[in-house]
């Protein structure tokens, strides 16, 4: 077979990357080779589980993260963030790092056992980057294509550089790959716990994984897919975790799961040979977010798929054996009940209460959408904080510091107070990027990712401050469904 080796120059070049000269970021980097690998989705779920098992990260996730309720949004945001951090443009990277630092500086406090947590703690951040690196390595190993030592070192250097961009020079990852593995094993051995966040992610998430927006309204299809995919992803993730940790955390050892895990990684790895557009993780993730009636060129395909899905859903419902207790599924009307609005929009963390982290999550999502810089981002957070104070004063009747569904339902009419109007005003200023006091089609698209709706624009084709404030208030208090805010704040 020696006569064929000359015909694969690419393969040869890949096996011997030029050390030293190769950039740590951008298209030439090792990381970039993995970026569109569909195995990444599994690796990232695994990394998230390992993050959540760290007491400090776990506490931050519990207190502030919307991951359990909005996993798709979080997955998408993480993808975008990594893309910016590992892209070729250094300016974009510096901005993203600054944004992450601002975001993390807001995540601190004490957990249920009165232990402090802080997302800015360099050890905590090092662990998060370590899980991303280690999960990538494990992803390759489990799918039967272990990385070569040089490639692994290269990748490690890139992740170190990633951490250094955020942390300045004092990144806390061990200096060499040789030192990394003992560090990793030690953290797994000594620091990881069966945290509440871990249990919630593993059990609640895999059990009640919300449907991605494309499948919204087709609960049966999602239920059928999830019934298979949820436990499978769960089993695969659990069995790919370090064994010592699995034992200590009392995670179930499922017979055959190890083999299953390897075949799943292998199968997804083989998917690389499918046409590019089918498997690009980024494409898949963004496709989940295309609104069926938006002007995105992919929307027509999505609409066609949805029609097919509707039929498939109808067939599935018809052939599913009758349940003992038939559930009266109600079609959603244009108006939400106070309870639905509370669940779908206000309670972003899904803990059943309205609390500051819920509002912070909304501010975070809006700043992310609009790609805000300082000082506008802080203005938006402050406006939300003011609104939170107003809500607490008006609605928290039992004084426990948070607002229950009942307290909210009892006080719906007083929701549109001056502080909420202020939020609308600040959001308008942030959206009105050129400051001409009206929102044009591009600015509108930045916020909502769809074009103007005919009934939104004024006669001159722009969206005035008054109309913007009015619509925002009607969404936040009038509980109007089918507004452009729905995909922004209510979907998973």
């Amino acid at each position, binding site marked *: 077979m020696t006569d064929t080796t000359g015909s694969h120059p690419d393969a040869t070049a890949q096996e011997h990357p030029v050390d030293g000269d190769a950039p740590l970021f951008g298209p030439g980097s090792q990381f970039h080779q993995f970026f569109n690998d569909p195995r990444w989705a599994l690796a990232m779920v695994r990394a998230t589980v390992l993050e959540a098992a760290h007491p400090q990260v776990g506490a931050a996730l519990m207190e502030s993260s919307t991951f359990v309720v909005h996993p798709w949004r979080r997955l998408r945001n993480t993808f975008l963030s990594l893309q910016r951090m590992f892209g070729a443009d250094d300016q974009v990277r510096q901005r993203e790092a600054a944004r992450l630092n601002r975001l993390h500086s807001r995540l601190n406090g004490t957990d249920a056992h009165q232990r402090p947590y802080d997302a800015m703690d360099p050890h905590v951040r090092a662990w998060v980057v370590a899980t991303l690196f280690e999960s990538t390595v494990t992803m390759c190993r489990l799918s039967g294509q272990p990385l070569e030592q040089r490639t692994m070192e290269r990748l490690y250097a890139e992740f170190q550089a990633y951490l250094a961009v955020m942390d300045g020079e004092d990144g806390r990852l061990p200096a060499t790959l040789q030192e990394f593995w003992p560090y990793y094993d030690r953290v797994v051995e000594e620091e990881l716990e069966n945290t509440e966040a871990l249990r919630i992610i593993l059990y609640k998430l895999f059990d009640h994984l919300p449907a991605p927006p494309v499948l919204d309204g087709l609960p049966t299809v999602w239920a059928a897919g999830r019934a298979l995919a949820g436990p499978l992803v769960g089993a695969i993730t659990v069995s790919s975790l370090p064994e010592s940790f699995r034992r200590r955390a009392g995670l179930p050892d499922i017979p055959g799961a190890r083999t299953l895990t390897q075949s799943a990684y292998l199968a997804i790895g083989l998917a690389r040979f499918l046409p590019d557009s089918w498997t690009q993780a980024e494409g898949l993730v963004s496709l989940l977010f295309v609104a069926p009636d938006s002007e995105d060129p992919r929307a027509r395909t999505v609409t066609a798929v949805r029609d097919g899905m*509707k039929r498939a859903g*109808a*067939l599935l*419902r*018809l052939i599913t054996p*009758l349940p003992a207790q*038939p559930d*009266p*599924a109600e079609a959603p009307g244009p108006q939400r009940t106070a309870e639905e609005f509370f669940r779908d929009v206000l309670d972003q963390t899904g803990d059943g209460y309205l609390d500051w982290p819920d509002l912070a999550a909304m501010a975070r999502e809006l700043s992310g959408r609009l790609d805000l810089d300082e000082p506008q981002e802080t203005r938006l957070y402050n406006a939300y904080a003011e609104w939170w104070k107003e809500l607490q004063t008006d609605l928290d009747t039992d004084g426990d510091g948070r607002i229950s569904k009942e307290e909210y339902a009892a006080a719906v009419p007083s929701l549109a107070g001056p502080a909420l109007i202020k939020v609308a005003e600040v959001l308008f200023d942030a959206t009105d990027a050129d400051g001409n006091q009206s929102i044009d089609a591009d600015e509108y698209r930045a916020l909502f990712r769809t074009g103007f709706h005919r009934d939104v624009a004024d006669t001159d084709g722009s969206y005035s401050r008054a109309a913007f404030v009015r619509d925002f208030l009607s969404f936040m208090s009038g509980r109007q469904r089918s507004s452009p805010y729905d995909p922004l704040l209510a979907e998973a």
Partner: protein
Amino acid sequence: MIDVIEAARTAGVEWLSLYAFSTENWRRPAGEVDFLMRLVRHAVRKHAPLLHARRIRCRFLGVTDSRVPAPLARDFADLMTLTGANRGMTLTVAFDHGGRGDIVEAARSLIRSGVSADAVDEENFAAHLPFPDTPDVDLVIRTSGEQRISNFMLWQVAYAEWVFPPVLWPDFRATHFVECLRTFQQRDRRFGGVTPNANGETRP
């Protein structure tokens, strides 16, 4: 029932309507109605994949009554969604349907559309009936030896031929259906006039 649907499809029938349950049937004892509803639901779910596979478009006349149990209404809607794009044969199931009710509904819809009285003719009146694409009925088979119209698709049966086989509906099979078709083929259809071949006139 599926037996008859298959026979009709094989014989080249493009439009088949079944009269499953009339508005008046609600007056039957509650236990009997419940039982019928469960039976219908069971039948719909059992045959849905086959109907779809045979490219039969299914639709239901008059299922909007609130007395139709919600799960059954859901199944009806699902079956319509599933088979909506099929063009093999159209199967209309008249469920909780009354012919007079349809006509009254059409009149209401006509009045609401603001058509002047002089502008109303048969054609645009018919356009307001439920499923206006349904053609006139050619043949009605009334089983069980009963010889009544029973308020069934009153508008559409204007020129229909009727056969009254004595066999009861639960015993009605494909062979009975073919027999009825043969009877129909031997009928001399005049559409209110006289036979064209008798006096050479064409029918309207």
